């Protein structure tokens, strides 16, 4: 178990606290401003990489590419997306969380807490799929341009049925 637990970065060896804050500092995000976001948060919380705040409210981690480079710089709260952050908006999210205000993921549901996300991951599901908006303008960028320019894929032909290789199932 130790062998497995120590292999994966998401298994934490100390209590994370209420919210896990990830800041992508992989190359693209970092260069586009992620480093500044990270620095601002670290300063604001007074903690460094992989450290919890004294009050147990936040745990800060430099994270690797979050598969959201189109939305750089990327932050996560309890692993939910907080896309396109700046130092100011990032710190503002933390302030709102601290004040107990409702905070929504930019592409996902309302922020809950770290333990709730851990449960989602453990069961690989929850009942929040219908909450929030998972598709944003950047995901629609190409579609939007295509519409503007009147572009589309070639027309769909009449349904074609792959010929069965054995005569068995002709309907």
């Amino acid at each position, binding site marked *: 178990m130790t062998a497995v637990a120590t292999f994966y*970065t998401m298994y934490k060896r100390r209590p994370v606290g209420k919210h896990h804050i990830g800041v992508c500092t992989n190359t693209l995000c970092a260069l586009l401003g992620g480093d500044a976001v990270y620095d601002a948060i670290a300063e604001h919380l007074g903690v460094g990489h992989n450290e919890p705040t004294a009050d147990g409210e936040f745990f800060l981690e430099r994270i690797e590419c979050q598969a959201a480079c*189109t939305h*750089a710089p990327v932050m996560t709260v309890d692993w939910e997306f907080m896309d396109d952050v700046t130092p100011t908006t990032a710190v503002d999210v933390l302030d709102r969380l601290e004040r107990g205000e409702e905070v929504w993921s930019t*592409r996902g549901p309302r922020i809950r807490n770290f333990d709730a996300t851990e449960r*989602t991951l453990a069961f690989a599901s929850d009942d929040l*799929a219908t909450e929030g*908006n998972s598709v944003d303008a950047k995901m629609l960028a190409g579609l939007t341009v295509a519409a503007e320019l009147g572009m*589309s894929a070639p027309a769909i032909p009449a*349904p074609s049925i792959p010929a069965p*290789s054995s005569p068995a199932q002709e309907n």
Partner: protein
Amino acid sequence: MTLTPVITEHWNDPTLYTLDGYRSHGGYRALATALKSDPDAVIATVKDSGLRGRGGAGFPTGLKWSFVPQNDGKPHYLVVNADESEPGACKDIPIMMANPHALVEGVIITSFAIRANHAFIYIRGEVPNAIRKVAFAVEQARAAGLIGKNILGSGFDLEIVVHSGAGAYICGEETALLDSLEGYRGQPRLKPPFPAVAGLYASPTVINNVETIANIPYIIDRGVDWFRQFGTEKSPGFKVFAVSGHVNRPGIYEAPLGITMRELLEYAGGMRGGVDVKFWLPGGSSVPMLTAEHLDIPMTYEDMAAAGTMLGTGTPMVFDSTVSVVKAVTRWLEFYKHESCGKCTPCREGTYWITGVLEKFEHGHGSQEEVETLTHLCNQIAGRSFCALGDAAATPYPAALKYFRDEFDAATHTPVDETFDPRASYVFAEAAAR
């Protein structure tokens, strides 16, 4: 070349992620078609389509499926690689969040074709919103009788399990993924045996990327000829390109393979502030970088290879001239060092060493001798490591050195942050401008 939304065509429908939404656009029509056909015919169709894997290596998908031994009495498995952790890759997660049923339908058809009654979707754990969307789609499909026993009266049974990863890039490597799925440390396995023969639980297993599988319903529904209208002979089809970096409109652009970066850039609104492209990577940090000279090369597997790089994940990262290539390369190496699984010597020790040297360059403490040493070290990893992660780690530096040697020279005396004000690269106004 025009944009051709297929997988992304209906992303602007906020109900697309639901079964009804997906069905309203013709979803699950392909499944019915496939189930009326037979497994070998489906494999033949996919083979004929020329579809190549979208996970990075570009291996012909139909061929891969055909390696699964038939009538061997063993269970077969389909494993979807949804670990998308390659720096710069950001297309599978959007597909799963916006159009999860395309994946699920693809999984059912593929499982039918390879005669698997169990399929696993291994999604990286850092993205709960993709996990819940896919899980939701699976539940809805199950409730509708599209998963489970005797699907659509065909006699075909399938269970789909959504599995969340726990944070390790190496688990995207297909055999490491299998170990991880089995509950072990995700370290790559020795091949042979190949997964097609002895994969998950030592049984024949097909591992495919999310986008690869999401292509399947469209191919089955619309046919080989329609599919082959896109792309080239060797790289047929369309591709979900995710353009990131210093472009005006970063985002998802679906277009035929063979589109050029210049065209993509144009659709993405051009470079931010009109600044030049300094370097760009066609598909992830593991493929060699290109420069502004290469903007007109068609984005196909073969043309990218000819240009000395690879299509990779087809998710171009574009950097403008505010960026220090030394800093970029250093950060990527820090990533590889962090993600090296530790199994083999060249990658484990090599990434440790190279990163240490690069960090010196970043602070202006490199030396000319070390410029050469780094080249040697990369050569000592490339082609000698256990898996492709090591090869990937040995990629950024030689490519960067090829085009930007002067920056490494400069980094022997001047910290890169002095040469390149980091604030100039930020995409927000706050601290930008020199």
